[in-house]
């Protein structure tokens, strides 16, 4: 197919065949785990990992990323890559969640602590982006995708400077960034917590050691797998976004169902590997 014949909006179309194939792979992995391991801690861990992956993949779509054009004030958003910014926020959340997991067993408290850690990182970063644009470059915030900010109602087009698509972070993009950080932090922490519980249970028997002796290994393994799976899901979502996105008001945001299916399948496949090293 030539470039002229290619569908110009192919990026936003949802391919139903691919979605169904993805869902079938997901169900096969879940069913195989259930038949081999039964309703065990490993099975619960797999479900938790899939939910965590979906939270990350969905959350990345909220993060306003402008890439290289944003660095020249040519497009709105934060001047860095989608996957990397989301990873920075999500891992900061994972840091907080892992710390909370040391002192409490309440899953809800641990996951929300991780979420708030990610949200906090994004809130501070987004505020400094606005600070640099306004006080360092003298540029007001203006969206290129909507005429009015959906949250504040502020009109946008007249604040766009000539020859640009907009610049800075309108308030809706700021809120999107914080929500993205919350989802990313929660997802990363949930994956870590599920794997940690599994490893703490299985490793002492496998290694013929006391629970206290295997704890550092369990923490390290769960942390490494959580970071790895975070990056897998963030990069998948970045491919779905293709370049830049302004936040939840951007038309590209509507592509998120594809990312949810893709993240679920990728998390299931990665998760089964992380589980198999101790459970099979």
């Amino acid at each position, binding site marked *: 197919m030539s470039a002229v014949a290619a569908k110009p909006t192919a990026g936003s179309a949802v391919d139903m065949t691919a979605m169904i194939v993805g869902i079938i792979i997901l169900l096969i992995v879940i069913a195989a785990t259930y038949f081999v391991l039964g309703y065990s801690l490993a099975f619960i861990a797999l479900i938790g990992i899939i939910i965590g992956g979906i939270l990350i993949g969905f959350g990345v779509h909220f993060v306003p990323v402008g890439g290289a054009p944003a660095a020249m004030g040519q497009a709105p958003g934060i001047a860095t890559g989608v996957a990397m910014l989301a990873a920075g926020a999500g891992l900061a959340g994972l840091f907080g969640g892992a*710390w909370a997991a040391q002192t409490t067993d309440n899953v809800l408290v641990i996951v929300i602590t991780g979420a708030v850690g990610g949200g906090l*990182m994004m809130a501070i970063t987004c*505020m400094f982006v606005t600070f640099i644009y306004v*006080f360092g470059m003298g540029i007001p915030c203006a969206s290129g995708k909507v005429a009015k900010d959906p949250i504040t109602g502020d009109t946008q087009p*007249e604040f766009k400077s000539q020859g640009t698509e907009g610049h800075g972070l309108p308030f809706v993009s*700021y809120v999107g960034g914080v929500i993205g950080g919350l989802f990313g932090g929660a997802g990363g922490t949930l994956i870590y917590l599920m794997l940690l519980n599994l490893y703490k249970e299985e490793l002492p028997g496998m290694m013929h050691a006391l629970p206290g002796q295997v704890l550092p290994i369990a923490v390290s393994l769960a942390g490494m797998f959580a970071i790895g799976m975070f990056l897998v899901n963030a990069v998948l979502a970045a491919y779905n976004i293709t370049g830049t996105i302004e936040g939840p008001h951007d038309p590209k945001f509507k592509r998120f169902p594809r990312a949810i299916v893709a993240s679920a399948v990728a998390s299931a496949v990665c998760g089964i590997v992380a589980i198999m090293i101790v459970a099979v």
Partner: protein
Amino acid sequence: MESIVFGIGITALAGALATVAGAAENVESDIGSQGDPNSQVQLAPQMGYIHRIFNKAVAGEPPAYGLWIALGAGLAWAFMAMQINPILAIVLGSGIAVFVQGVYATTAYLGRTASLAKFGQPVYLDILKSMTTVTMAHAFIAIFATVTLCHLINAALGHPFPLPLLGLVWGIALGAAGSATGNPFYGKERQYQNQKFGAGVPIAASGNIVRYAEAGERNSLDNGWFSAKLGGPASGVCFGLIVFLELWRTVLFEQVGAGWGAIIIGIIIILVFTVIDRYIEVWARKNYGPYSKPVEEASS
């Protein structure tokens, strides 16, 4: 009580180290031209603008710093396991990690610049000799400060992650915060200093970066000097606040309400930053622009 005071002291020290790390990271990446504005450094020769700016962007700042700091932290951890004094171990680990950064910077500059040969862009060996060591020096400060704060978090505050894993987590966060905050200042204000202040760079001007300084041709050391005025310190304060507030809410409030204390304080801090952000946005709308008459009908 004593442990809380100790925890707050460590938190403050970690926040201060993070501030230094963030500032050094941003200045390093701007001297090396590693962030997103590097797209213009790469584009300029293709548009006919030959320049003497360093060019080492192969990976984004977050994965690059994730690598270097995880490497520094891993080596420091190994040295500590060999019973070497922690300060010496961190210096040695950071030093070796910086050599990896130097190799990366050298090969990146040679490779990227050589790829522009067909557009007439020369590889300047004097640039390679004088800039690489400066980026390495800034990278050492960033890596040393971040590995030290990771060591404090692990050894003094008792975070469960081992040192190399903390290095990876905070290295990626450092690169993300530094590139998000500092890139626009370098990209718009420095590379396009010839464009109007208070407006974005028109897309038609892409590639026409400023190539001449007060005397002779501009090089990346001039860009480092410029970034150190606002982009670097702002990145430093950004990363310093992230580390400080994350540790502060945990150290002081984690025991309150079975963990809910730290969550509530975190939410309050997020709301405070949201109010500050909105205030700055509204202030800018009142004081700058509008650039054109308001549009009556939405035309999205």
